[in-house]
């Protein structure tokens, strides 16, 4: 099993550009999450999904969108990139809501 995979690993965007961060898991987990990690701030939940077709906002959803058309994939979309979105983004998945979360390796995004 590959676990949770994320692409790309690194990306530099210009202000106003758009991009999609890809996340896939092969563990048949219903629950998937997107976090951002900023230095000294821990992880902040952006969006999460409890199953295909169901998504909900986390703590810091502004400027992002998600979709969940399949159990495996949970892409994160940035429509108009801003410098405040410079961060490391982690995707995670879990079998249930209180279960261990498995994390991907992260995407380091810089917006200039």
């Amino acid at each position, binding site marked *: 099993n590959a676990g*949770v995979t994320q692409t790309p690993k690194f990306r530099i965007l210009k202000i106003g550009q758009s991009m999609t961060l890809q996340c896939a898991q092969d563990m048949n987990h219903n629950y998937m999450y997107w976090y951002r990690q900023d230095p*000294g701030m*821990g992880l902040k939940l952006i969006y999460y999904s409890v199953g295909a077709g169901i998504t909900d906002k*986390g703590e810091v959803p502004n400027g992002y969108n998600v979709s969940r058309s399949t159990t495996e994939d949970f892409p994160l979309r940035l429509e108009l990139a801003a410098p405040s979105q410079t961060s490391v983004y982690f995707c*995670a998945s879990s079998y249930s*809501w*209180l279960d*261990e979360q498995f994390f*991907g390796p*992260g995407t380091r995004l810089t917006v200039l």
Partner: protein
Amino acid sequence: AQSVTQPDIHITVSEGASLELRCNYSYGATPYLFWYVQSPGQGLQLLLKYFSGDTLVQGIKGFEAEFKRSQSSFNLRKPSVHWSDAAEYFCAAQGNRDDKIIFGKGTRLHILP
């Protein structure tokens, strides 16, 4: 408001020494508690979790944590650290099935040879 506090941003210990990383939580009722570790350039990995029962929880890599209700704490311990334990450690809590997980800001562990 619900919160998780890790009072120490950095901790430095010598290889072979014991380790204790502090975590305090603020919740209306006892939450579900977790410790995760993040090695440089990697995602997070679960070390251990506490839901109920025995207040001393054993985890992977020789770590353990003790839940103390009276102190609202869930401190992580290891009797003897190895250089490979150098990483960032995150305490996390989740109130109930409807609550989202909250992570502390992390403690970065440095190991002296």
